């Protein structure tokens, strides 16, 4: 009994720690007053209005979407090529080259940013949105790579053999059998890549110029400067974006689970 109570208490505390800060902060975005504290001074949408009518915030939002879309496209091409290419190679290759592909995710972003800053300065791309796009793809493509590689591993190799037995060329087999079946993996990876770029702060902080500044960099700057309700309104909008993408990921995961279930019952 004591063990049970203790267990429920520990789990509740952990959940409280995980969710309480986020849940506590959301209502403040709708505060009518200009202080970030309770009790609320009436309910209003004025801070969302401020965000959507202030040119610097809007410009940053536009830059972020542009950079994230570009980074996603590059990530999908590179990650897809990496996963499909390595899938046909022997295991030792997969470990070594796959490890190299994944490694940008563990290198501290600040270190990566220092290196990229010098590189883009030398290339004459300093401050250009393209530089942030290219840099973000470095973090996005490993995510597409693992996601597509996982779906490829889950495919039944007999499908490819069957298509081959019916006389389909390798190129035709890939585009009519393998690719449609791994499409959920591509979509999942693309969402990962987009979210990663859209939320990324450090690389964008190092590489952006006033013209190419992204939303997280503006948010970071204003957080260091002064705590204002607009920041929380932006935070709430970003949270909604995350939740939306998470729902999309859940939806993408569903058909695969259904497919697994049918193979299990078979």
């Amino acid at each position, binding site marked *: 009994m004591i063990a049970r109570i203790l267990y429920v208490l520990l789990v509740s505390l952990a959940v409280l720690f995980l969710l309480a800060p986020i849940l*506590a902060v959301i209502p403040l975005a709708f505060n009518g007053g200009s202080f970030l504290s309770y009790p609320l001074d009436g309910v209003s949408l004025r801070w969302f209005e401020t965000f959507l009518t202030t040119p610097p915030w809007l410009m940053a939002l536009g830059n972020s979407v542009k950079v994230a879309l570009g980074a996603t496209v590059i990530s999908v091409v590179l990650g897809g090529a990496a996963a499909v290419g390595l899938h046909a190679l022997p295991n030792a290759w997969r470990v070594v080259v796959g490890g190299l592909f994944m490694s940008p995710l563990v290198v*501290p972003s600040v*270190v990566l940013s220092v290196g990229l800053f010098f*590189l883009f300065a030398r290339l004459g791309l300093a401050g250009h949105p393209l530089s942030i796009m290219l840099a973000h793809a470095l973090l996005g493509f490993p995510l597409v790579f693992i996601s597509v590689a996982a779906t490829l591993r889950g495919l039944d190799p007999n499908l490819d053999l069957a298509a081959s037995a019916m006389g389909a060329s390798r190129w035709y087999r890939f585009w009519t059998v393998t690719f449609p079946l791994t499409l959920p993996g591509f979509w999942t990876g693309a969402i990962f890549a987009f979210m990663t770029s859209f939320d990324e702060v450090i690389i964008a902080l190092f590489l952006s110029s006033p013209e190419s500044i992204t939303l997280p960099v503006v948010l970071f700057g204003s957080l260091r400067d002064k705590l204002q309700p607009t920041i929380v309104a932006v935070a709430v909008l970003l949270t909604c974006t995350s*939740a939306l993408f998470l729902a999309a990921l859940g939806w993408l995961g569903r058909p695969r689970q259904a497919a697994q279930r049918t193979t299990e019952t078979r």
Partner: protein
Amino acid sequence: MSRVSLYLSTLLLVALPVAYVAFLYLVPLGGVALRSVDNSTIHANLPATASAIDEAGAPSDEVAAALAKDLAAADRRSLGELARLLNLDAPGMRSLLLKTKRALDEVEVKGLADLRAIDPDWDEPIYWQALAENAQPYTFRYYATAIGLDRDPAGGWQFGAEGAIYLQILLRTFWMSLQVAVIACLIAYPLAHAIANGPPTVRVLLLGAVLLSFWMSILVRTTAWVVILQREGLVNEALMALGLVREPVQLIFNRLGTLLAMVHVLLPFAVLPLLNNMKQIPAQQRDAARSLGAGPFESFLRVYLPQTMRGILVGAGTVFILSLGFYITPALVGSPGDQLLSYYIADFMLKQLNWGMASTLSVILLACVLLGLAVAWLVNLLWRPAARAA
């Protein structure tokens, strides 16, 4: 034939991401390493002096004439940078060089005596030593600063008065990362257990909460902590309403706030490996242990916990390695005394424009992360046979 063409097309596919990684990842990291020992500002701006001077830096007429020639050819900007760097090694050299450069408009320097006539300080060996050392295209100056060495008046190395600041910062980085890893595992453990073993509704809701947190912007989560921990924040109001404190407590811009926010940001990285591990442990084991007479605590300690050691290690290791490079959260929630190594790299890079120092600290941080990964790899290697034997 078919096999060969299969390998060829595969290699072509893999070549694209490999080229990308090589050009945008390996080359820049190599560039950082090179820059941490780069000394070309001096080497490139004093070419004649660099070739004339010998290793000991013994002054001679030939070197003096070469120096005068280089100085006369140097433009304002490169001379200023040169003087600033040399002044780090030989205090006073900045003004000496600038004075000499000005005098060169009127005096022609043919030998050592002419230089001494401009300024008698050219008698001091320290300036010639500084020139001799910097004639090398590479320098370990930044690494010396990083471990707390600076120049003594005679031109040698000594431990600086303020001690090894960057080593202390590195130590702080390790210590705080360790704290974050341990706290994150303690909080993640019951959470992962509830997701792995709870009723379906609890499972879905909790996993959803963890994943939402995982995908939520680090800035949003840090903002949340700033807002609730501030002086007028919810936590302070709750404490005062409960009568636990009379005045608001300082909860933010200190170590506690920084650790809490970092744990919150990294918590999913501890939950997910633990969850993977716990899902593989059959629930019947607990019943078996209980039916053999073990109490709930004993069955947990002797049956369940040992089987989750792998998950704990993977989770703690991941959180620790990711913490080492943390910048955003401490920068927003911490005091100056809670900043990790990344903060100083960003500061040298963006504010002080000391790229040599930024590169050197980057190399040190990267080396620490690689060391952490190597240890994790070794543990992983040694762990497997033990698990199989059990």
